[in-house]
């Protein structure tokens, strides 16, 4: 009995010791993207400036990060003091009181954060996450191939023009394809890209009464256009292609054009790259997406004050200048602050700066469809049910692209899936 008591006492001391040791220790969950890795490398500068605070990083791939932080926040696990989340989670979690509202001092200059980013990370005017780097989508194309084809790329081309350019640049015998687009299923993969395309064709995910609108003629037109474009001018096996696969194809010189995240521009190695705004069909509303990897503090953390300090540091103008000093202006996290784009050094270092800023500024998550819609978000609808719906519908799009089913069948199935989920969730 005595030894049992001693063991229990020992265990309680260990637990107490563990709790005490965690004071001043921040645990941050993040993804393994280039800008995040740089933040980890520069963290000792923050620790030097803030003695008593140490930072532990938990780096995960995107899917695992999403499930880990969701599990943690819904169970109030308290494992993380700062979470890296996207524009999809911020307004939903903020509205449920799961995130601390952000209230920065005047030095932080919150007004400098691009309005589209602030809007997308807020709920009812309250900011719940601070953008670390942001992105929109744009056209990245090989100017040499387009010139050789005797064509030009306007600053904001139509989808018809993009199809003509893709046709002109395609030379299948020499393994040269006019256009590469995402085809891999996922709400953040093909569904995100096709949604921006559909927005521009006048389509939307939900009607004002939350009934799904995937059976509309606009969706049919958009998806048919996408499937035809990829079948005629895209590379073989497109249904498995996501960001990294297409990046590899671009760098191997096999694609003439790619429409994807603006961040891709910084990874492209071909010296003939040029940039234009995402194409439009009947409207430019929602034609290019908007995303921000952001930092947020879960409600109820014991380290709120220290977490806020770190967040303020990592998303400040001074941090961007620190990255510029360390690695050069071409490597700074972009898409968050107007001051970055106003900086002449950045303008000189980043050839894509102008196109990226124009793309981000033109994206409006609260007004992204031709006809009124009840949701916020450009390439997604910021409702909890969307992840499941978007991924299941993305699978239908992939099936249509692979030729397993027709576009009409894919959209009919998609409508049924969305209708079932929305009914189950009690929207109508």
């Amino acid at each position, binding site marked *: 009995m005595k030894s049992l008591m001693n063991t229990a006492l020992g265990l309680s001391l260990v637990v107490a010791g563990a709790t005490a040791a965690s004071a001043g220790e921040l645990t941050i969950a993040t993804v393994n993207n280039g800008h995040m890795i740089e933040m980890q490398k520069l963290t000792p500068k923050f620790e030097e400036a803030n003695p008593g605070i140490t930072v532990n990083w938990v780096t995960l*791939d995107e899917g695992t990060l999403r499930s880990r932080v969701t599990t943690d926040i819904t*169970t109030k696990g308290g*494992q993380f003091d700062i979470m890296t989340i996207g524009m999809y989670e911020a307004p939903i979690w903020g509205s449920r009181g799961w995130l601390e509202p952000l209230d920065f001092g005047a030095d932080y200059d919150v007004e400098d954060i691009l309005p589209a980013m602030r809007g997308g990370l807020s709920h009812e005017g309250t900011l719940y996450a601070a953008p670390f780097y942001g992105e929109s989508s744009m056209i990245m194309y090989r100017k040499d191939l387009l010139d050789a084809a005797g064509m030009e790329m306007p600053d904001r081309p139509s989808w018809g023009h993009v199809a003509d350019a893709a046709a002109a640049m395609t030379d299948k015998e020499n393994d040269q394809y006019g256009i590469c687009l995402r085809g891999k299923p996922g709400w953040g993969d093909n569904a995100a890209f096709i949604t921006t395309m559909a927005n521009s064709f006048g389509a939307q995910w939900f009607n004002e009464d939350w009934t799904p609108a995937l059976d509309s003629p606009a969706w049919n037109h958009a998806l048919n256009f996408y499937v035809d474009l990829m079948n005629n001018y895209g590379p073989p096996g497109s249904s498995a292609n996501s960001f990294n696969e297409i990046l590899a194809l671009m*760098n191997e010189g096999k694609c003439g054009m790619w429409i994807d995240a603006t961040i891709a521009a910084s*990874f492209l190695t071909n010296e003939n790259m040029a940039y234009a705004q995402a194409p439009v069909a009947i409207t430019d509303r929602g034609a290019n997406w908007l995303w921000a990897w952001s930092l947020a503090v879960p409600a109820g953390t014991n380290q709120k004050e220290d977490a806020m300090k770190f967040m303020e540091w990592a998303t400040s103008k001074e941090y961007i200048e620190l990255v510029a000093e360390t690695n050069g202006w071409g490597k700074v996290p972009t898409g968050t602050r107007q001051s970055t784009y106003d900086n002449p050094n950045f303008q000189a270092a980043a050839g894509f700066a102008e196109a990226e800023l124009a793309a981000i500024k033109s994206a409006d998550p609260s007004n992204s469809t031709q006809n009124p819609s009840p949701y916020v978000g450009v390439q997604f609808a910021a409702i909890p049910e969307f992840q499941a719906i978007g991924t299941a519908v993305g699978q239908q799009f992939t099936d249509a692209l692979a030729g397993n089913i027709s576009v009409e069948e894919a959209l009919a199935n998609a409508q049924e899936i969305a209708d079932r989920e929305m009914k189950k969730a009690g929207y109508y």
Partner: protein
Amino acid sequence: MTDKQRDIWKNRIAVFFAWVAALLFFFPIFWMVLTGFKTENQAIAIPPLLFFEPTLENFTEINERTNYSKFALNSIITSFGGTLLALLIAIPSAYAMAFNPGRWTKDILMWMLSTKMLPAVGVLMPIYFLAQNSGLYDTKAVLVIIYAMINLPIVMLILFNYFREIPKEILEASRMDGTSTFNEIRQVVMPLAWGGIASTALLSIILCWNEAFWSIVLTTTDASTLTAFVASFQAPEGLFWAKVSAVSTLACAPIVVFGWLAQKQLVQGMTFGAVK
């Protein structure tokens, strides 16, 4: 063709197929190690590069960014700890089932094995809550317990089969000499089944080492294992194949070396009971 010549040819064909099978199994490992020494652009080059100027930049970056030895130590402690705990439970249980079987012994074994068919995510929330509320979250102890539990059915089944190979007469003789049950297991059963126990332990260690789901879900910073270490190098936006290959090489290396050192026990265990 004489019989002797026919035998030689049969042998040659068998050796040829053995080599093909061995190369098929080895090629992904060879390619992983090779890719770890490439740059990110070389890693995705088409056609794939077999000859290139090797670089250590991936290993240098991994070393700068993370504490490999901490992850490796956690993997060693949790794999060996989980296996030891599983053996402590499985040896007496398998002994009881092998030498004193009841009417339901086989059904119980099958039921235990059927729990392996349960998808791990199905019990995620209860185990997550239990770990959190017991203060064991992000500790090596929770992984040791989980690893022992998930491998217990397989360890039990294999040991049960090994123990059944031991002639009952030997146990009866020891009982006649007045040996207690504990001593019978320790001094008679375990030495006779040592090869089997060693190969079962090795299999369990490998399964624990490669386990990714629970080690990622139940740890953050203190108890993360090498599987979490590998997962942290995947990137949704950016090239990562060369770094992931280098990380995977580092994650596989200890268990490959261990397996190579223990191969004698493994082969001995596999052939145990084959010749009586």
